[in-house]
Structure formats: structure tokens, C-alpha cells
């Protein structure tokens, strides 16, 4: 289901490609080899459930798959060996051309699959990288509709000294600051008591904490 992505691109780009990658991997691992040596493969203990399931589905869907088992029947093998060229020499030439065209088509089909897989793998990497960047910076896109006040995006409403620590009365009491960042609800933050409010580091700590809080709430 891809549609929810339209509403919430923040949900993750990687999630777009990961299931597809797993599905293809599963298909390539399980599906292909099974038909190549059907009976040989079925006889061994190494058969696995997903391979069996793929082959069962394939037989149910298309009976032509059973033609692959022709090597198991002597009379079927003999059909392959029928040589009509004695009665019509053009036929062997035609058959050769047919086989060549088939081989070529199969080669390009494999090439097409490889290209799709390479693209898919690249998308998996890119989406992962995009998610990483989005987690780090995507929050800024939520600010588009905000208007900045005269004093900027961060408003300090109160600065209070907290109750001194009774266990260590000599230690300076921490400071409690209430701020409003962007359009968020007022936020109460604590700054260590040894940093005075007129120290430039004070507001750096407050702003950093407020922004961390905002990012956590606005990035999925």
C-alpha cells in the first residue's frame, strides 16, 4: 500500500524499496533454480518450503511447466532426437536459427533483470541515505508556514531558580527556563546552576535542548 506515503513522506523512503527488495530476493532465490533440475532438486533433502511453494504455484498456474520434466520419460526424449533434416534439410537450419534467437532473447531477458536489480539496489542505498538526511534535517520543512516573531523563533517566557539541593546546599541551584520554540507548546527546561543566565552558554544550552525536543516530536 503506497498511498499513505503521499501524506507522510517522513515515514521513510527506505520503506518504499525494502519490501520490494526482499520480495525480489525471495523470488530469485526460490524460484529460479527449482525448475532447472526439477526432479533432481525435488529428490534431495535440501528442498525448502518457499521453493516448493513457488513450484506448486507455477504448476497450478501453467501446466506447460510439466513439459520441463520430459527428460524423465524415454518416449519424450526420443521426440527431441527426431531428426527431420533427412527429409527436409532446411529444417535443421531453421531449428538452429530458432535456437540462436531463443538464446539471444534469453540473454537480453537476463540482462534486463540484472539492470532492474542493479537499479533496485541503488534505490535501496539512496533511500537509506535520504532517510538519514531526512531524520537529521527534515524537521525544517515543517516550519514553512510559520511566521517569525520580532524576537525570532525562540521566546523565553520565564527564568526561575529551582529549589536548592538539600543534600548539597553549597551547590548552586539549577535554573528552570520556560521557552516557546516555533509553534510548539511552552517547554520547561533545566540548565545547571553553575551556568549563570548572563553567560552566553546559558542560552546556547536552552536553545539546543529546545531544538532537540522539537526534532524528536517532529521527525518520525
Amino acid at each position, binding site marked *: 500500500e503506497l498511498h499513505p506515503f503521499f501524506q507522510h513522506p517522513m515515514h521513510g523512503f527506505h520503506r518504499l524499496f525494502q519490501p520490494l527488495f526482499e520480495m525480489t530476493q525471495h523470488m530469485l532465490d526460490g524460484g529460479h533454480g527449482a525448475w532447472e533440475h526439477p526432479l533432481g532438486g525435488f529428490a534431495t533433502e535440501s528442498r525448502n518450503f518457499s521453493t516448493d511453494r513457488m513450484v506448486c504455484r507455477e504448476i497450478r498456474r501453467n501446466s506447460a511447466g510439466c513439459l520441463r520434466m520430459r527428460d524423465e520419460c524415454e518416449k519424450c526424449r526420443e521426440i527431441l532426437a527426431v531428426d527431420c533434416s533427412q527429409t527436409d534439410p532446411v529444417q535443421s537450419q531453421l531449428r538452429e536459427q530458432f535456437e540462436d534467437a531463443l538464446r539471444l532473447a534469453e540473454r537480453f531477458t537476463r540482462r534486463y533483470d540484472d539492470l532492474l536489480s542493479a537499479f533496485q539496489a541503488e534505490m535501496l542505498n539512496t533511500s537509506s541515505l535520504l532517510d538519514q538526511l531526512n531524520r537529521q534535517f*527534515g524537521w525544517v520543512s515543517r516550519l514553512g508556514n510559520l511566521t517569525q516573531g520580532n524576537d525570532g523563533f525562540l521566546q523565553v517566557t520565564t527564568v526561575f531558580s529551582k529549589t536548592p539541593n538539600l543534600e548539597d546546599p553549597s551547590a548552586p541551584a539549577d535554573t528552570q527556563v520556560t521557552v516557546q520554540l516555533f509553534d510548539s507548546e511552552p517547554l520547561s527546561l533545566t540548565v545547571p546552576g553553575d551556568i549563570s543566565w548572563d553567560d552566553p552558554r546559558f542560552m546556547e544550552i536552552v536553545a539546543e535542548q529546545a531544538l532537540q525536543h522539537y526534532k524528536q516530536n517532529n521527525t518520525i
Partner: protein
Amino acid sequence: QGLVPPNELKQLSAAGSKYIDAEVENAINGVKQMKTLMDKTSKEHQAMLHTLEETKKKKEEAVKLALEKEKQLAEKQEVCNETMLSLWEECKPCLKHTCMRVYSKMCHSGSGLVGRQLEEFLNRSSPFSIWVNGERIDDLLDREQRQERRFEDLEERFGLMEDGVEDIFQDSTQLYGPTFPFFRTPPFGGFREAFVPPVQRVHLVPRRRLSR
């Protein structure tokens, strides 16, 4: 107790906002990085589409040729008809038995239906299918359909990723202008000019993408 007089609160707000502005600027650069990465990926995607198209064309030509040759062979096969037909009559029951044995061993249900389908299929088929490895053509056509679905699926997801990044980017560009006037001046003006045409910069109307 209140530590800071109200008139000082404004100064604290301004100092904090300065820090926030720098972080916003950094994040806008980060979003620009996302956009650049997506643009690069889109170019690679275009090149990939071109290669895929070429490969598909070659594949289709080869399939077409194979089908033509198969048809010509089918027209010629009459000469061998008698031998092949008698062998085919003996091949069919063995093929059915083998296939059903394998199916019953591996699959939990559906033997009855598969048996009937197979019987019909074998009665409809000719020994020629075996003689020319007919299932290889069936396989090719089958794989073509699967590839088509896989391609469409990938394309849809790629489009969503492109749109997602575009949305984030466009939403971020709304911050330019009155809100962040300092982005007009270097060093930030530099990067903005790289992707906002001068006319747009005046109006600053965000471009909304069209839904795919």
C-alpha cells in the same frame, strides 16, 4: 524566584533565536543536500531507463525472430508428423504421471485440478512443443510480463521518492524571504540563487508539484 528581569528576557530570546537560526540554516543546507542527491539519482534513473529501453528492444526483436522461426518450423514439421505423433502418444501419459508424482509430493492441495488441467493441456499440445523446447518461449513471455510488473512497481516507488523529496524541499523553501531575510545575503544567498530563479525569488510563491 524570578532570576531575570522582564526586559532582559527579550535579549535572551534574541540570543536563543540566533542559535536556532543557525540550526535552521544548517538544516536547509541539509535539505538542499537531499535535493541534490535526488537530482543526481534522477539523472541516473534517466540513463537507466534508456539502457532498459534498448535492452527491451533487442530482447523483443530476438523473441519476434524466435517466434517467426518457430512458426516456420511448425509449418515444416508435417514431414516428421507420423514418427513424432506416435512418440507423443506414449510420451503424454508418462509426462502426466511424472508431473503429478512431483506435484503430490511437494504440494498440499490442488492435485485433482492440476491433473485435469494437465490432461487438457497435453491433449491440446503437439509433440512440436517438446521438439522445439516450446516452454522456453513460454518462459520468455512469462518473464516479460513479470519484468513489466517489476518495472512499473519500481517506477511508482521511484516517483513517490522523488515527490517526497520535492515536497520536503519545497516546504523548506517557504522559509526564505520575509521569515529569513538574511538568506538573501551571502553566504546563504549563494546557494539559494542556485535553485531559485530570480523571478521566483521576488514572489516567493512555493511551487506545488502536480500529483503523479
